[in-house]
């Protein structure tokens, strides 16, 4: 059933491309229908798959001479991320409702991207995973460069090149693992059991981890993320932060850590407390958390605040992965889901609800607009999203980041201390943005009121999208067990080394 999320999205992309150009409404509704159908399948698949371990969905030979198989399967981690993709896809369509330029092409690229993302999360063959991973790169370029805003061509090209360099590193690791395993297979399970030499894992692990980490916004390879997010149209930045960065983190977890677990073994010497690749990447994650938060604190562009906050929040995911214990890794996966929902919400508010009406994202200009009075819906939505993003109890972010911090405490208390600083700064930048953009009592900016124009009313897709994302974040925050039931056994199996 879950496999149909992939086929449906690609078929939808093809359909959108063939739709007549002058019927944007048709393109919108059909895209919404396809996204909803995919989301429905994801929910059903999630409900059916929880508690059943790894379920194989499809497994047929693809390139027999090279041992490549078309293997789709889902464990708890995949299920959660597929669910996230389904939700984000629907929300993205809702927040793209006002796209008038080349509407059908927009949704064609959009659905192609979604299909690729579903595919990555469901692939259990390294080769297949890589194929889907690359499929997800190209549509992003066009989504940003055609429908984007600030410095869109620069942002799009930067993102495409970063992604492609990352995937080139992954491809090198893939070829190396394939040729040195001698198993004549690219199945994740087979490769994990191929007994790759430790010396090989030692250099393949960092290569592949960094390759995927680039897309996960790992410091110092994160610089594509803020510019890409800012340049992207709302739906694309929602997807970028919501699911595409998760592709990177998922690859780190499933491929780099799953196939080369010995790459995280100690080197046998240590320098300044760093004695393994695990320490290196945990350090980079912590730097990312703090750096992202600090940079977000001083941005003058509203969207850059959210862009850098994504870098900070993704740092928690990477830190959680590097704890290598049950609670930390569970937290990391939950954080992927949580950040996907919350970042999507934040980008939707900033990019669609505010920017499309005020035509500025400069906090200095928004300050004089009294948006809390003129756009109360946006203001309150941002309050909720901001609170969720800060990690207050009751929202999904809390339970996720809390678990990561607990996990990292038992791995290395220093990491937790530093990451805690990031949380504090996180409160500060969210508060600052909230205050400047919505609740400022600064004097009105002259030119806004000169024309005296009213801001357009909030439309139903916006209300629907915001409500959906808030509801999901709340639901997970209040009753995390529904996701944890899926994640925990899968993480346990991964840690035991047999789950792959």
């Amino acid at each position, binding site marked *: 059933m879950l496999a149909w999320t992939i086929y449906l999205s690609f078929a939808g992309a093809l359909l959108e*491309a063939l739709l007549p150009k002058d019927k944007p409404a048709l393109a919108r509704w059909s895209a919404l229908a396809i996204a909803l159908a995919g989301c429905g399948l994801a929910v059903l698949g999630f409900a059916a798959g929880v508690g059943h371990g790894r379920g194989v969905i499809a497994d047929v*030979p*693809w*390139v*027999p*001479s*090279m041992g490549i198989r078309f293997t789709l399967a889902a464990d708890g981690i995949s299920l959660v991320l597929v669910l996230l993709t389904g939700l984000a896809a629907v929300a993205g369509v809702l927040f793209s409702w006002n796209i008038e330029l080349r509407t059908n*092409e927009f949704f064609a690229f959009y659905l192609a991207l979604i299909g690729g993302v579903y595919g990555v999360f469901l692939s259990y063959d390294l080769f297949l995973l*890589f*194929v889907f991973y*690359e*499929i997800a*790169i*190209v549509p992003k*370029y*066009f989504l940003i*460069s*055609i429908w984007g805003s600030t410095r869109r*061509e620069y942002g799009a*090209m930067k993102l*495409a*090149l970063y992604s*492609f*360099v990352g*995937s*080139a590193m992954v*491809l*090198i690791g893939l*070829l*190396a693992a*394939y*040729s*040195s395993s001698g198993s004549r297979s690219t199945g994740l399970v087979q490769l994990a059991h191929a007994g790759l030499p430790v010396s090989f894992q030692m250099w393949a692990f960092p290569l592949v981890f960094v390759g995927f980490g680039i897309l996960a916004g790992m410091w110092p390879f994160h610089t594509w993320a803020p510019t890409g997010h800012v340049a992207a149209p709302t739906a694309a930045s929602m997807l970028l932060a919501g699911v595409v960065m998760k592709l990177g983190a998922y690859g780190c977890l499933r491929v780099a850590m799953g196939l080369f677990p010995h790459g995280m073994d100690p080197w046998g010497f240590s320098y300044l407390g760093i004695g393994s690749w695990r320490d290196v990447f945990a350090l980079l994650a912590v730097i990312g958390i703090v750096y992202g938060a600090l940079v977000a604190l001083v941005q003058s562009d509203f969207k850059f605040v959210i862009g850098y906050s994504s870098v900070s929040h993704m740092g928690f995911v990477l830190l959680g992965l590097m704890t290598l214990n049950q609670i930390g890794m569970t937290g990391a996966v939950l954080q992927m889901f949580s950040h996907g929902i919350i970042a999507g919400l934040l980008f939707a508010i900033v990019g669609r609800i505010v920017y499309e009406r005020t035509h500025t994202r400069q906090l200095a200009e928004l300050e004089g607009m009294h948006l809390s009075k003129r756009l109360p819906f946006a203001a309150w939505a941002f309050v909720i999203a901001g609170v969720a993003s800060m990690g207050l109890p009751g929202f999904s972010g809390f339970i996720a980041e809390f678990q990561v911090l607990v996990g990292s405490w038992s791995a290395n208390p220093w990491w937790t201390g530093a990451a805690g600083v990031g949380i504090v700064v996180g409160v500060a930048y969210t508060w600052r943005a909230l205050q400047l953009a919505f609740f400022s009592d600064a004097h009105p900016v002259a030119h806004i009121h000169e024309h005296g124009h009213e801001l357009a009313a909030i439309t139903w897709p916006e209300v629907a999208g915001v409500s959906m994302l808030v509801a999901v974040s709340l639901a997970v925050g209040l009753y995390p067990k529904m996701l944890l039931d899926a994640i925990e056994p899968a993480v346990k199996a991964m840690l035991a080394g047999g789950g792959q």
Partner: protein
Amino acid sequence: MNYADLLRVTLPETALEVTALIVLIVDLGVLRGRTLRLRVVAAVLLGMFGCGVALMTIPLQAQGGLNFPGTDQLLLAAGGSATVAQVGILALTVLTLLLVFDSTFTRNVGEFVAVLLMAATGGLLIAAAQDLLVIFIGLELLSLGLYILTAFAKKSGKSAEAAMKYYLFGGMSAAFLLFGFSYLYGVTGSTNLHQIMQAMYGSNAINATPLLTVALVMVAAGLGFKVAAVPFHFWAPDAYEGAPAPAAAFIASVSKVASFALLISIGTAALHVFGDAHVVRFMVITADDHFPKYLGFATPWSFALTILAVASMVLGNLAALAQRSVRRLLAYSAIAHAGYILLALAYFSRTPVSAQAVMYYILTYGLTTIGAFGVVGAVERASGSDQMEAFAGLHRRNPVLAAILLVLFLSLAGIPPLVGFWAKFNLFAAVLGVSKGAVPFALVALAIAMSAVSLYYYLQVLKRAYVTPALDDSKIPVHPVTMTALIFIALWAVMMGVFPAILQVWMQSFYAAM
């Protein structure tokens, strides 16, 4: 000599030559004074018919090929890479002919088609040749045809300039090649590839190592010219830019297939002789058969090829970044692709895996390139320029053409699930399958990094087509036949990418029979 046997092996070549003559007779005789449109249709249809007949005769070829009379020395091979290459050459020639349909660069279309067919005949000969003399004849037949085709747009100064450059470089490289061949013959006493390899293995050739090295380097230089490897690539950008679109497509596809098939023949012959050790060991003499590690660099041949490969993929990709003309961009990207393939030829395996990977790559590359030149030609006719700016707003001016360009360029960049990705993966896996040493691994890593660079310039063109607004909104007309061919190529690139095993299995069937 048994002429019946000779005819059986050279049936495809004969069919093409006869067709070329028929095309000339029909065009200059029967259809003299008729409209250009009619003559184009007649010439193209006849040419395609000839290719079809040639394709039909391939199964009739004698299994195992033709030996030199009275000896067991192979003259022309049949089966394996030779046959795959021949089928590929004929199929790509058909597609090139389809591009001629709406070309307007010449009135002498009969002559164009005839020369094209003769050049293709040269390609067929090279693909099968196992003897230095036949190789040289085939190469000259192909090259002379290509010079003429390049010059065919008589009203274009660029065309003449390109042809002149191509001719001068080509003549010089032929001299290099002949010089190398003469040394090879002098040292080993044979013109047969297998005999030469045998002799190299024997002691008398080992004593003449410096001469052999000179000979091999000369041969590598001569063939490096044919495949446009750096530093013998100078003709390529000019020829791609100046030649009429179908001629450029032909140079980029058929001529490449033939030249790489020849390199495969050389590699196969060498490994056939040297067997298990699969090292051409005449510089480092290590007779340790219990340790059959590939010494790659120990041989001047693979050393020369490696240097050509690295130089080509680095320089080709970097130079392509700076191009404004899409044709020149395609030329530099062709150089880069040649670099990847040369890497697989430098690390050649004893099993047919490498040969198949190279054939897979060059055939799919040739097909994609023909499609790309088809699109470039159509845009050029509408806007009079092949600069990137001419592609602006292509998605409005002709959405189908833009979609084709998207698929083909992404395939050239090696984005899955398109066929170009599989070709690259196959090729690099073959290199690593031969040797797990650090050097080949570093070379593959370099190649992959360079193909990441290549995405940038392919995207530059696609950006014009999809993102930049059009300068003028007029539609770009394409002849339905050409359009059908282009759509077929693009669909094929997608289908072969989604089901890559089909082509692999088809190719393997030729090797299995050997």
